[in-house]
């Protein structure tokens, strides 16, 4: 009966999978309530209160943005690219659940990641702190990787100077900033708009506001170390625009990474290595 109700909404195949996942979930929510919520359109990830991200399990709570498979894919690739030989200072802008820095903490050798995540939403910062603790990366110390979320707006022209504890220069800058444009926002499925935080989705009239802000931070003297890596996720069709923004504002050339569905998903740049002088 549950399966039939789910099928009517999701189609047979997806319903069968999701029904299994609900039955296997360790959540105390009764199965009939889970099914009812799903049929009403709530995203599965919020119902199960958890989403796997790489080998990690990330705790979830509305309205914090649900980690996407595209983000999982490029974060794993970024970890393979970094191969740190010393401690890297990592900054994640718009951290949400904290999934990006936490996966880097998990995949890279102990003691090589000191990450800080910025988010304007208090819901996100609280959840990211819980996730840091659950994943075992909330303890300060040099022998382990650590992640610390901080509430702040990186659109603020004064960022990060007036905030304690965000200390440039950084070696790695990551971001999955809000990138949905005004016209696209109106077209989104209610599963997204009715449950996920618009602050995590809406990127200004053309969806590019946050890339301008990130590029000006990158251009700021002393914000990134020489040879630092910048990796930002972009929306479908935005890759070249974002490359241009980094080129014009920060004089950085970048490459594009494809996601598993062959969409240009990540713009990756490196600041020039220290010149020998």
């Amino acid at each position, binding site marked *: *009966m*549950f*399966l*039939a109700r789910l099928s009517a909404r999701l189609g047979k195949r*997806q319903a*069968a*999978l*999701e*029904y*299994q*996942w609900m*039955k296997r979930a360790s959540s105390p929510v009764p199965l009939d309530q889970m099914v009812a919520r799903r049929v009403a359109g709530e*995203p*599965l*990830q919020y119902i199960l209160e958890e*989403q*796997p*991200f*790489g*080998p990690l399990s990330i705790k979830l709570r509305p309205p914090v*943005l*649900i980690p*996407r*498979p*595209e*983000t*999982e*894919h490029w974060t*794993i690739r970024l970890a393979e690219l970094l191969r740190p030989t010393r401690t890297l200072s990592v900054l994640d802008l718009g951290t949400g659940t904290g999934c990006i820095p936490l996966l880097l903490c998990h995949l890279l050798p102990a003691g090589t990641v000191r990450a800080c995540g910025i988010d304007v939403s208090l819901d996100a910062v609280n959840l990211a702190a819980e996730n840091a603790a659950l994943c075992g990366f909330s303890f300060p110390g040099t022998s382990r990787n650590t992640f610390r979320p901080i509430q702040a707006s990186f659109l603020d022209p004064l960022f990060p100077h007036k905030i304690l504890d965000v200390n440039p220069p950084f070696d790695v800058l990551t971001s*999955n900033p*809000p*990138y*949905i444009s005004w016209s*696209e926002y109106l077209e*989104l*499925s209610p*599963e*997204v708009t009715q*449950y*996920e935080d618009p602050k*995590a*989705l809406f990127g200004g009239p053309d969806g590019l506001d946050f890339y301008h802000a990130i590029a000006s931070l990158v251009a700021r003297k002393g914000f990134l170390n020489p040879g630092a890596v910048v990796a930002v*996720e*972009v*929306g*479908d*069709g935005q890759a070249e625009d974002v490359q241009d923004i980094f080129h014009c504002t920060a004089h950085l050339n970048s490459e594009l990474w494809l*996601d*598993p*569905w062959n*969409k240009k*998903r990540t713009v990756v740049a490196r600041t020039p290595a220290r010149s020998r002088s």
Partner: protein
Amino acid sequence: MSSPEDVLRLKQLKETEPIQEAWDQWVSTREALRETSTLLEDPELRSMAAEDYTMLTESLTEIVKTKFPAILVPPSRTAHLSALMELKSGVGGSEASLFLGEMLRMYLRLAQVSRWKANIVASSDLDTGGMRDAVVEFKGAGAYEALQWESGVHRVQRVPATEQSGRVHTSTVAVVVLPLVEESDAQKEELYSMDDIKIEVMRARGAGGQHVNKTESAVRLTHIPSGVTVAMQDERSQHQNKRRAFQVLASRLLEAKLAREMEARRASRRNLVKSADRSDKIRTYNYAQERVTDHRIGLSLMNLSSVMEGDGLQDFVAALQRDHEESQMEDMLLEE
């Protein structure tokens, strides 16, 4: 210092040790028997000697019957492997699915008795009870050796619980058992190179990224040289599905490799042996007669409940292993 030739010679010597041991045992037992038989003439020691004589004769027979032939059987390459079992319901609709659930329980019981760690990797449960298919891994040394003979079509004959008229139905469940390859084994066996693998995600996602929050984690791998494909969608993340898919792919490739090796050995003996086909019906579970029959070795057990509880199944597993060893010996003896 030992040269490579020395190492090779030492290895050969080491491998022949069991032959020497068996021979020494044979010689000393025969000598003891010869001594004992002279004492049979002695009126005082006669009864004691007769006892020894019987015992020694038995030992000699034992050596000839089991010890010598066992030396002929090449050491197993698969003894340490765990197993991956796939069950799929065949003809019989929901009744086949119900029986599949009962078979799964039977194997989980067997795992418990055999101290293997069983883990259901994937299953599609049905609202009506039972499941359409299931994938289970059995971790522990010897799991693959014991379970490999379960591959094939299992047939159940009974009146389904759902049947009103009391008519007997025949349904089938297909089982495939693969060697479970750990990541370290996969590299050791050189089963595939990453360049030969095509990784695909299965369904379109539109714009993807922040635009879509639907769970979309299905992954398909294709091993281009062999054409083997593995699709995995039971886990909620792509990463997990990919790991699972690689594990299944490695298992399939290792099974194919083992089968090729076996064929090559047989071909070299110019001996045509019918290899078991996966579509062959291997066993029948007849509820009305409380009977389970294995068609390959012609063994029937009149205790179906015990088989389904896992204990009786052990008898089949042991008999099939014995049968395999015997046929291996026959193969060896046919060699010139």
